[in-house]
């Protein structure tokens, strides 16, 4: 059953309280993801895109609404929904690269013998191009390599859904481009469904089949853009630029945050003028 709606998000609302201030991180999110799709979530910082991903992962409980995977409601973390984080400390420092993956295989009971676990772990390391680094400890790796291992570890337990929370957000531009290409290749190889959070417009266009644009406070879906550009996608092309401009205008102009910031600046300026009666100003 290919292309059925694997993940269904219904009327999802998530509210936080910061002191006595109520923050509507997510409001009335309705969305469906098909099996094998690569979805990008994009939005200004603080728009709740990570919160949405964490709800799908089961780390956060929705205030209202529900999320279903293959018709089953999600209420806790699960190995069929593996998360890859932005931070470089997601690998266990006391395990080698190989042991990190073998540990995942062991606790999820994906393979029952050490030999088998090692074999699978090696295969996944090879897939991310790190076969030569099996015996290294995480602190001996670069940031990009750590993220590769994290992707290999997440995929090794054969999840249906790979949740990626700005995994390339802390990488330099070159490494980021390489890893985007690799991710596309891995996605095409494994056919895993990917939900990828980013705040980088180019990254969203390079990767996604569909790009979900979230607005902030309240965090709502503003627009869903279908991206049918043929891969590999070149930022030089005209079509790429059209999508870029569309996303840019959806994200860049008259965000509530910007409007607020503008108001504050004006206020500051007024305050300054009021102080100008002081002789030294």
């Amino acid at each position, binding site marked *: 059953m290919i292309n059925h709606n694997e993940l269904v998000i219904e009327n999802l609302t998530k509210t936080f309280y910061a002191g006595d201030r109520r923050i509507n991180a997510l409001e009335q999110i309705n969305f469906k993801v098909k099996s094998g799709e690569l979805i990008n979530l994009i939005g200004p910082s603080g728009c709740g895109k990570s919160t949405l991903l964490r709800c799908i992962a089961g780390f956060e409980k929705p205030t209202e609404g529900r999320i279903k995977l293959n018709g089953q409601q999600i209420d806790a*973390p699960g190995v069929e929904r593996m998360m890859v984080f932005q931070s470089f400390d997601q690998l266990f420092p006391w395990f080698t690269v190989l042991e990190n993956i073998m540990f995942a295989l062991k*606790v999820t009971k994906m393979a029952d013998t050490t030999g088998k676990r090692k074999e699978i772990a090696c295969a996944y390391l090879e897939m991310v191009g790190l076969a030569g680094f099996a015996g290294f400890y995480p602190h*001996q790796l670069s940031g990009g390599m750590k993220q590769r291992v994290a992707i290999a570890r997440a995929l090794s337990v054969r999840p249906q859904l790979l949740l990626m929370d700005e995994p390339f957000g802390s990488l330099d531009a070159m490494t980021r481009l390489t890893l985007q290409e690799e991710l596309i290749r891995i996605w095409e190889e494994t056919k895993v469904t990917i939900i990828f959070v980013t705040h980088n417009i180019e990254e969203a266009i390079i990767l996604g089949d569909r790009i979900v644009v979230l607005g902030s406070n309240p965090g709502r879906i503003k627009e869903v853009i279908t991206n049918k550009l043929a891969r590999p996608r070149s930022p030089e092309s005209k079509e790429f630029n059209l999508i870029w401009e569309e996303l840019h205008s959806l994200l860049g102009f008259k965000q509530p945050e910007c409007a607020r910031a503008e108001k504050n600046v004006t206020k500051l300026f007024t305050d300054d003028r009021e102080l100008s009666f002081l002789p030294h100003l």
Partner: protein
Amino acid sequence: MKATGTRNKTINQVLFITGVILGWELLAQTGWFPPLLFPKMSAVFIELVGEIVRGEILQRLAFSLQIIGLGLGLAVVTAALTTTLALLSPLVSDWVQALMAILHPLPGIAILPIIILWLGTGARSIVAVIWFSSVWPIIANLHTGLRSVPTTQIEVGRNLGLKGIALVRSILIPGAFPYILTGLRVGWARAWQASVAAEMVFGASGGEGGLGWFIYKKRFFMEIPSVFAGMAVIILIGLLVERLCFEGIEVRTVRRWGMTSE
């Protein structure tokens, strides 16, 4: 580059200590000070060898190590239980932190008078003082250590289906290991200090006692070289445990994992 750097440091330190010992010997040889109060290093060394041959100092050492092991072992168990409870309940966590704030600054030896009233003047009281002296730094480090484990690593564990004791055992404890090691180091040092101090206050009952009691007794008979010999043994054991035990563990774990901030 790094290897020669460390070798030079070690040679430098050994030379310095040898210099201090020689200086001491020469100063004592001049006869400016009464030998009874300021014995020659050679006399201390001869006495140390003599005590080792006669066996008394080794017996004392064995006794000390035994009660320190007992006190420290109890402290580790107490710390593990307390921290586990604190981990499960925020209420207990508040209590533990309050207790720590109140009792940590209190030197172990300060509770000795009360402990003597409660438990009498025996090995039990010394164990109690050792336990009290070492339990707080161990709890404090364990507590901090468990909280220092990055949230992402805990979430990866939960994502893989770990929870409860399994999560603690396979993620939190290895993650907190640098702190656990520090806690044990401080606990061990405190335990030694406490055992020596406690034995000097009331000695030991029935002729039993550790190195503290040995030093105290030798001072009583004015066998000053033996007093220094007792101190030398404490220093040697300290160095040995640090070098062989703690450093060995550190090199194989925390340093190999890159979990030190050196």
